[in-house]
C-alpha cells in the first residue's frame, strides 16, 4: 500500500516512514503543500498522513483537492496545534481519522488498519490465532462455538496486540491506547499487568497462551506467524 506523508518536520516524516516500511507500506514524503498537491495529482495513494501546519499554508484544503481529483486516498490528519476546532474541521472535510501529536507509531498503524478494514468492506473482519477467532465487528473472541467472556478493556488490549503482532508493545503504548487522552499522571503503572494477567487466565481455559509473551521490563508481544 502506498502512503504519502505530508509533514514539514523531516525527522518526523523519516521516522514514520521507517516504521511503516516495516509494515510493508511504500512511503512517499512531501514537505510542503505544493509538493503534496503535485504528488497527490500524479500518484495514487491509499493513505495520506496530513500535517495541518505546513510552511506554505493550511493542509486542510488538500483533502478537498484530492476529493475533487477523484482520488480515493484515506486521510489521517496529524496535528500538533491540537485546537479543538481543527479536529472538527478536518473530519467535516472528509478526513478519515485524526491523531494529535505526539502519537505513538503502533497507534497510527492500528488506525490505518481500521480504515483499511472499513474501506474494503467487511470481508476480512476476523482474526484467527491459535484456535481462537476474534470478531472485530461484534467485539467477541471465541473458541469454536464457545465465547470467551472478555471485558471491553481486555478485548481492546488483545486487539491492539494482534494488530501490532510480532512487535513488542510497551506498557506505555498499551496504556495510551486504552485510556487515550485522559490526563492522568500515573506514567508507570502496573494496571496493564493486571489486565494481561486476567486476559491470560480467561484465554487459558480454551487454549495455550504462551504466544502472549511478557517482555521483561518493557511490555508485551503477540507472536503470530
Amino acid at each position, binding site marked *: 500500500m502506498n502512503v504519502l506523508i505530508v509533514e514539514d518536520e523531516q525527522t*518526523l516524516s523519516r521516522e514514520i516512514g521507517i*516504521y511503516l516500511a516495516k509494515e510493508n507500506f511504500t512511503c512517499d514524503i512531501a514537505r510542503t503543500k505544493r509538493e503534496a498537491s503535485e504528488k497527490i495529482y500524479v500518484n495514487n495513494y491509499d493513505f495520506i498522513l496530513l500535517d495541518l501546519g505546513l510552511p506554505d499554508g493550511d493542509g486542510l484544503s488538500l483533502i478537498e483537492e484530492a476529493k475533487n481529483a477523484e482520488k480515493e486516498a484515506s486521510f489521517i490528519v496529524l496535528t*500538533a496545534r491540537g*485546537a479543538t476546532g481543527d479536529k472538527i474541521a478536518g473530519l467535516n472535510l472528509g478526513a478519515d481519522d485524526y491523531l494529535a501529536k*505526539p502519537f505513538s507509531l503502533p497507534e497510527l498503524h492500528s488506525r490505518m488498519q481500521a480504515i483499511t478494514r472499513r474501506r474494503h468492506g467487511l470481508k476480512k473482519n476476523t482474526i484467527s490465532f491459535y484456535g481462537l477467532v476474534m470478531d472485530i465487528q461484534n467485539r467477541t473472541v471465541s473458541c469454536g462455538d464457545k465465547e470467551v467472556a472478555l471485558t471491553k478493556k481486555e478485548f481492546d488490549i488483545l486487539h491492539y496486540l494482534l494488530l501490532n503482532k510480532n512487535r513488542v508493545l510497551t506498557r*506505555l503504548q498499551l496504556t495510551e491506547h486504552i*485510556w487515550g487522552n485522559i*490526563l492522568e499522571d500515573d506514567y508507570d503503572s*502496573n494496571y496493564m499487568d*493486571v489486565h494481561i494477567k486476567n486476559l491470560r487466565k480467561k484465554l487459558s481455559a480454551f487454549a495455550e497462551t504462551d504466544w502472549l509473551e511478557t517482555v521483561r521490563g518493557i511490555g508485551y508481544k503477540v507472536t503470530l506467524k
Partner: protein
Amino acid sequence: MKLRSKLSLYSTLSKLLVLIAFIVIVPIIISFVSTQHTDSRLTNMKDKVIKLVDKVGIKEFLEEEEDSVFASYNILKEEYISIEPTDKVIPSPVFENTSRIWEDATVDYRLLTVTFRHAGHLYLMEIGKSLAVVKDLNGVLQRVAFFVLIISFAITILLNIGYSNYLLRPFHLIIEKKLKTVNHPEKFNFETIPTTTADFVYLDQTINEMMHKIKNTFAREKEFISNVSHELLTPISVLQTRFENMLSEGRLDEESYMRIIDSLKTLNRLKKVTNTLLLISRIENAQYLKNDVVSLKDLANEVISEIEERFTEKNIAAHILFSDDFRMQASNRDLLFTLLFNLVNNAIKYNKPEGEIFIRGYLKDEYFLLEVEDTGIGIPAEHLSNIFSRFKRVNTTLTEGFGLGLPIVKTIADFHEIRVEVASEPGKGSIFRLVIKNS
C-alpha cells in the same frame, strides 16, 4: 432594583408627596383667599352704604327715637346690614365670624363691624355675609382644584415614566446586548446602540473599545497557544517516534533497551505536562464549547468504570450515593469527565489500602453538591490553600504525580462556574465538594 424602576418609583413617590402637601394646603389657601375676598366685599359694601347715608341722610334708615335700629337682609338671609346709634367708637373695622338668629333660624355670618359719624352722631354698622354661601363656594373650588391636580399629576407621572424609559432604553440595551455577553468575547456584539444621549454614547464606545482589546488579547493568546503547542509537541513527537523505532528494530543490547524505555517514560511525562498546561490555557482561552447536557450520576458511574482497576488494585471500595441526579446544562462533557476523573483518581492515589471512596450527589437549597470523599492521608490545613496552584505538590515524599491534577480540576470548575470546596483532616481523609448552581 433596576435604575428604570428606581427612577419611576422616585418620580411617583415625589409627586405623591407633593400631591398630599397640596391636598393639605389647598383648603387652607382657598379659605384664606375667600375670607380675604369676602372681607373686601364687606368693606366695599360698607363704603357704599356710608356714601348712601351721606347722600340721602340717616333718616331714610333710622327713626328719630332713641333706640331705633335699621336692619335689612335679603330674603334668603345671605346678606344683612344693620345700623344703630352708638356712643362707643370702634377704632378700626372688626371682622369676625358670628351667628345671628333671624326668625328662629341661626345663621352663621362673616361680620364687619364699624362705627361712623354722620351729622355729628355716632353710628354702629354691621354688615354680614352668610358663611354657608362662602363655604359652598370653597367646596366647589376645592373639588375643582383637586380634580385638576390629580389629573395633571397622573399625566405627569405617566409622562415621566415614559420619558425616563425612553431615555434609559439605550442603557438597557447596553446591559442586555453587551454587558451580559462580556464573558464571551467571541460572541460579543459590537453594534452601536442608537442614542443621542452623550453619556450613553460614551459608555457604549468605551465598552466596545474594551471588548476589542479583550478580543484581540484573546485572539493573540489563542495564536500563541497554538504556536507553543506546535513548537513543543513537534520535537516530542520526533523523539517519541525515533525511540519507538529504535525499540522495534531490536538491534539494541538489553541495557540500551532499558534506557530507551526510560527515555520514553520521561518523554511521556514531558508530553503529559505540556498537554496539561495547554489544556489549562485552552480552557482559560475559552476554546471549548459548552453544548452538552450531562447527567452527573451517569458521569460518576462512567468515571468509576473507567478507573475500576485502580480500585481493585488497592482494594478500595467505591460507593456512589446519589440522592438526586442532576442534569448539568451548558457544559462540556469531556471536560467534566476529566474533572471528576482527576478527583476520583486522587481519592484513590492518596487513599489507604482497603480504604473507601464515597461519591455523593444531592440537592441543597439552590445548589447541587457533588462530593468525592476518601479515607486517605488527608491534607494538612496549612497546605489547603496551595493545592490548586500549579506545580506545588503538597506531600513531597510521594513519588507519584507532579501536581497538575487539581489545577485542572480548578480550571474546569471555573470554566463551568462551579465552586470547589475542600475539607480535610490529616490521617482521616479529604472531601472535595463541587458546588453547582441549580438554575
